[in-house]
């Protein structure tokens, strides 16, 4: 391949999208049920669509959970991401692209007395990122089943590649001279406690360590040229390790008129210098065959130590990043959901079914990430009236998130 062209700067945002799902799927598997009871048999089919910041991600996800006897429950999930991206990173340094990621997972729960043992495996496959994750966990009910304590561990081994586009043929393929690896481990402990006949609380603590290639193979940092009037771009430089600590507290309260209110707070810190706070408030209200839900979420963080929107000069420091997810910003998300529950007399094996629709609106306001299209331009076309680097308006992101899913309980 000659005249290779990097077409997918900003790709890592999607890669992170995928990797994060691994952890979350794991969390769901490990903590979706109390230790002394097998999870209920169910099947879910979901269609989702995320549209924001020039990125559209949509696709299906199917989850099936089935008991085998009285002591074993098996869960399988298949998930497909279809990505069409013209994000701010792509806009300033490359051309739009489309891609697809598939993820399959399988987990088994073993119930023994008041303990639940979980083993699972997740495989994620996309054109420039392969991830294999195994996880194990144990949960145990005690104190008359008022308390559930859980421990979880996961280990992931990932392979990172870089896609290149041949400008003559348009064919996209892996760069034969680029292949990296990354390993991640997670340790998780959780305690769920019934406080009163209307109140349950949960505390959770998780340590995650990463080692290997942690940056995007596509994204660049920008810097002032010596005359301070123009800018240049060079590949980001990241540390090879990252360790994070996150602690969260949740509470859910049953209201006197059959409704529920819940709240969550999470504190986060890591060795990159990011300090994050998350707060959430939710309300669930059943009405006949309907269940309505409203939710609000606030998130804020301080930037990583090696993040800057524009560096004073090239090679300014050992580590340099311009990933907006490492910047200082705050985000608000508000969502509404509706569930309609039904039974079908002709299908006595179907205990219950439900149709579900959920909509969330997310807005993110960055404190130190500027919209560089005002100085660099979009997709190679310079702006008509370019602004000086470092004086562009701050970037803001808005996203619409829609989910529709059908659930069946057996």
């Amino acid at each position: 391949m000659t005249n290779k062209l990097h077409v997918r700067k900003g790709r890592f945002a999607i890669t992170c999208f995928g990797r994060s799902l691994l952890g979350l799927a794991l969390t769901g598997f490990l903590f979706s049920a109390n230790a002394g009871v097998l999870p209920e048999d169910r099947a879910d089919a979901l269609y989702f669509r995320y549209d924001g910041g020039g990125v559209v991600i949509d696709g299906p996800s199917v989850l099936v959970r089935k008991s085998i006897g009285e002591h074993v429950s098996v869960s399988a999930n298949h998930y497909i991401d279809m990505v069409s991206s013209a994000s701010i990173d792509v806009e300033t340094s490359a051309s739009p692209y489309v891609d697809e990621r598939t993820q399959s997972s399988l987990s088994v729960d073993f119930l023994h007395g008041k303990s639940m043992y979980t083993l699972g495996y997740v495989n994620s496959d996309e054109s420039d990122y392969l991830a294999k994750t195994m996880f194990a966990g144990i949960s145990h009910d005690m104190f008359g089943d008022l308390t559930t304590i859980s421990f979880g561990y996961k280990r992931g081994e990932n392979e990172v590649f870089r896609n290149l586009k041949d400008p003559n043929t348009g064919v996209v393929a892996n760069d034969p001279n680029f292949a990296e690896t990354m390993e991640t481990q997670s340790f998780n402990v959780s305690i769920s406690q019934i406080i009163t006949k209307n109140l349950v609380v949960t505390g959770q603590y998780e340590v995650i360590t990463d080692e290997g290639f942690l940056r995007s193979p596509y994204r660049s940092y920008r810097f002032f040229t010596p005359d301070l009037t123009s800018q240049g771009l060079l590949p980001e430089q990241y540390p090879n390790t990252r360790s994070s600590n996150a602690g969260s507290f949740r509470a859910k309260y049953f209201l006197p008129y059959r409704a529920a209110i819940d709240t969550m707070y999470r504190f986060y810190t890591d060795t990159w210098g990011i300090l994050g706070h998350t707060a959430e408030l939710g309300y669930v209200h059943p009405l006949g065959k309907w269940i309505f839900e409203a939710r609000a979420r606030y998130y804020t963080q301080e930037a990583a130590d090696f993040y800057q929107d524009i560096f004073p000069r090239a090679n300014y420091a050992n580590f340099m990043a311009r990933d907006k997810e490492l910047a200082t910003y705050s985000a608000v998300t508000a969502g509404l959901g509706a569930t309609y529950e039904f039974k079908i007399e002709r299908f006595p094996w179907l205990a219950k079914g439900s149709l579900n629709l959920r909509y969330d609106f997310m807005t993110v306001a960055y404190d130190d990430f500027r919209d560089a299209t005002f100085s660099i331009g979009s997709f190679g076309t310079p702006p008509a009236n370019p602004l000086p680097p470092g004086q562009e308006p701050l970037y803001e992101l808005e996203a619409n998130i829609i989910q529709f899913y059908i659930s069946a309980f057996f």
Partner: protein
Amino acid sequence: MRIRGLMILGLAVLATGCSSIEPWVKPYDRENLADPIMVFTRAPISQDFLDHVFESREGSRGATGGGGGGCGCN
């Protein structure tokens, strides 16, 4: 030496506690907690997707599991 003493004391307290603490919310008092609306994550397939949207847009990660919730009764 002091640490070992504290550990022994802690284990003794825990052991005593295990044998003497009585469940203060009896199983027959957990009707509200057993209501499906009291589960932290009513639909894992939906919450997993939404959580990973958040994680992909945020520097923070981890400790987002539902942590059980619900009844806690067999």
